[in-house]
């Protein structure tokens, strides 16, 4: 026993090493956060002025009032500094075209750069919140951009996806929850969805 004890740290290290080895290469963005199933946190944020939208403060209540009643909605976290946000943008636009209520959260960005991004890429969002300091981001457990949240009409966070949102992820993680929560039919014409995918 006396001879085994000093070897214990080594044995523990080897076990940890195996865990690490098996964890390498897994998509780190899959780490779920424990906010799914909880209520969307309250916040006080300014919105981003863009074209006909003026900058004004929003709280959770104010946001919900401004969105279509009884419908689930999407919060999409993005930033002009985030390369994948450019990649994901066409699909976000497709969702918007399909009539999904989209809230953008411009994350740790600058107002002018955020506006430049939308000018270049188009604005799919009904409301664009600005989270310059990442305060709502922290409450939500945002690990980076892009990240997307599906929120029920009652304000419950139904699903979260970290990383680029595309049709496959939507079908797998969001589509059923969307329908179960009174979301209207999306992508009814199969061709339209494929077309949008092609555009990416």
């Amino acid at each position: 026993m006396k001879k085994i004890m000093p070897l214990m740290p080594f044995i523990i290290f080897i076990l940890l090493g195996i865990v690490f080895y098996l964890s390498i290469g897994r998509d780190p963005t899959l780490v779920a956060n424990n906010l799914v199933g909880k209520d969307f946190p309250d916040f006080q944020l300014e919105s981003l002025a863009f074209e006909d939208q003026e900058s004004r403060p929003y709280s959770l209540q104010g946001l919900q009032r401004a969105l279509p009643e009884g419908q689930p909605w999407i919060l999409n976290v993005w930033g002009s500094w985030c390369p994948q946000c450019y990649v994901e943008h066409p699909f976000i636009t497709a969702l918007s075209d399909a009539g999904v209520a989209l809230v953008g959260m411009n994350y740790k960005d600058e107002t002018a750069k955020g506006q430049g991004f939308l000018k270049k890429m188009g604005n799919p969002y009904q409301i664009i919140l600005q989270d310059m300091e990442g305060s709502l981001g922290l409450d939500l457990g945002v690990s980076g951009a892009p990240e997307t949240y599906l929120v029920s009409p009652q304000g419950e966070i139904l699903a979260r996806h970290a990383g680029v949102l595309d049709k496959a992820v939507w079908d797998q993680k969001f589509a059923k929850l969307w329908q179960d929560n009174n979301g209207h039919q999306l992508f009814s014409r199969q061709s339209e969805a494929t077309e949008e995918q092609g555009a990416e």
Partner: protein
Amino acid sequence: MLAEIAQILLLVTAVILGTFSAISLASFGGIIPSLQGVTRQMLRPAAYGQWFLMMTSFVILISLFIGHDYSISYVASNSNSMLPWYYQISAVWGGHEGSLLLWVTILATWYALVVRFSETLPEELLCLVAGVLAGVQTGFLAFILVTSDPFASLPLPTPMDGNDLNPLLQDIGLILHPPLLYMGYVGMSVAFAFAIAGLIHGGIGSAWARWTRPWTLYAWAFLTVGIALGSWWAYYELGWGGWWFWDPVENASLMPWLAATGLIHSLAVTDKRGVLKAWTLFLAILAFSLSLLGTFLVRSGVLTSVHAFAADPSRGIFILGLLGVVIGGSLLLFGFRAHLVESKVGIRLASRETGLLVNNILLCTATFIILMGTLYPLFEEMMGLTQSSVGAPYFNAMFTPLSLAMLALLAVGPRLNWKRHEGKAALKMLSIALIAGAVIGAAVWFMTGWHLMMIVTFILVAAVVWSIGTDIRHQIRNASSMLAGLSRLKPHYWGMHIAHTGLAVMVIGVVCVSYLSTEEDMLMTVGESYSVGDYQVTLEAVNDIHGPNYRSSQGVVTFELNGQSTTLKPEKRFYIAREAIMTEVAMDVGLFGDLYVALGDARNDTQWTVRVHDKPMIRWVWGGALLIAFGGVWASFDRRYRANKELKQGAAA
């Protein structure tokens, strides 16, 4: 051109250090003793040469940034011609590749300093220490050259401008934070190298501990300041009153700190009494291993966090292999040789040694708890459960009782004598303290109605301060005057008490912030008063102000407490040209607390939403941390660690 030179310099350094490390470990490790002469000759040229080469390549990277050389991939993706010059320099360590180069450059510096300032060390031990450092350095240079070359160029055509530095990192706190933290992380390599050299060479005892102590104290002080700076940054940059979030990256810096704190205490025992050697060696290996984990694992994509840089599996595998060799190898060496170093001297139950042993156990437990909490998502994933991250509630629940136990130990431990303490006297002292504490605590609870946890902590802090005071009085009891007595006390003694006082200060801050903070969002009518915590808060007026390029609504908010009043003026600015609204928070920063006011939106002409934070004693958290670090540095000035000419014989024997 410059970039290619730097690449060659890195390669040359890796080859020199690899060779030196191999012959040093082989010759003094007893495999090829004939190479000892060569090792001795190479020792100094290799140490200073590698420092020169590493500094040169680091300066080259800085100059590439300042020269806007966007043909270099790393520069192009982390800088921009519009970036102010100071951010162009800090952008050097803004990404994975550059922060690795900073890491090895700092290691090169520690390595050169150790060789330069260890004339009194027996040369064979110094050769081994240098050999270990060179080996670690070689490994990470290889990592840079194979997977993370900051000097790699982009295919033509060269981009017109760079991608810009992540805006998150454009901040003064983040210019200083990584270098300080790295000084701490990397500095642990010195204690680690001493531990490995000691395990190979033998002769671990008082002299060995005395050589290791100052290096460990410096690194530990850097780590302390680095962590405190990170916490302060999170507080003012994120701006809603938190100072510690139990984020994986924060945990990754706290773990080596806890292990290193154990190490400096354990080193004291090995120095003074020549026992707990295996503990000391283990903690030295642990502190450096956790530093490596802190710097690299978090960046390999195994653990994600807001701070994590890149997720690249090939890097992950390389890092894991490297960590396997460095940490696994040293733990294996420890496993087989640790029982050889421990002296047969036992320690008595009532003694300073026992107190410090318990301290080691408590700190290791704390480290283990954080390690498990941080890695929990990985375990859960392995078992096929749904992933969830373990949040602050877990850490707070586990950490609070440990902290209380440590405080209690701190009140008693330093008062215990080395070797043996008169058991009865200790028991008597303890029971008086317990009864007095309980009585005072009950009285305070009855009068203030504070949270019980707060009162218990305050009593313990009071006991710690009282114990420090009595100890100093006891030490100077025979001096002719108080001043004469105080001036005769040694730096390592002062250092200990300064650092412990720092901890007491920090605990007061933590407890007050945790239990007495107020955060409220209110709808306020102009002219009316509201009570927030102990304050009477009044929104006196909201004035329209015209700035150079903005219009602003400026709130005038007064805080009244016991007849003293403070006025803060938060603003809501509308920048005309950019059509943007910015919230200017007003803060009153004070020794006994911060007040924070932000003006929300107007409901009508007289009603405004206002966010008010009252953070009592928050500055004490960082002030305490600085005191702790200062204590460590002060202790290292002790002549005990300098005048060891005579010890050279002691170690050789």
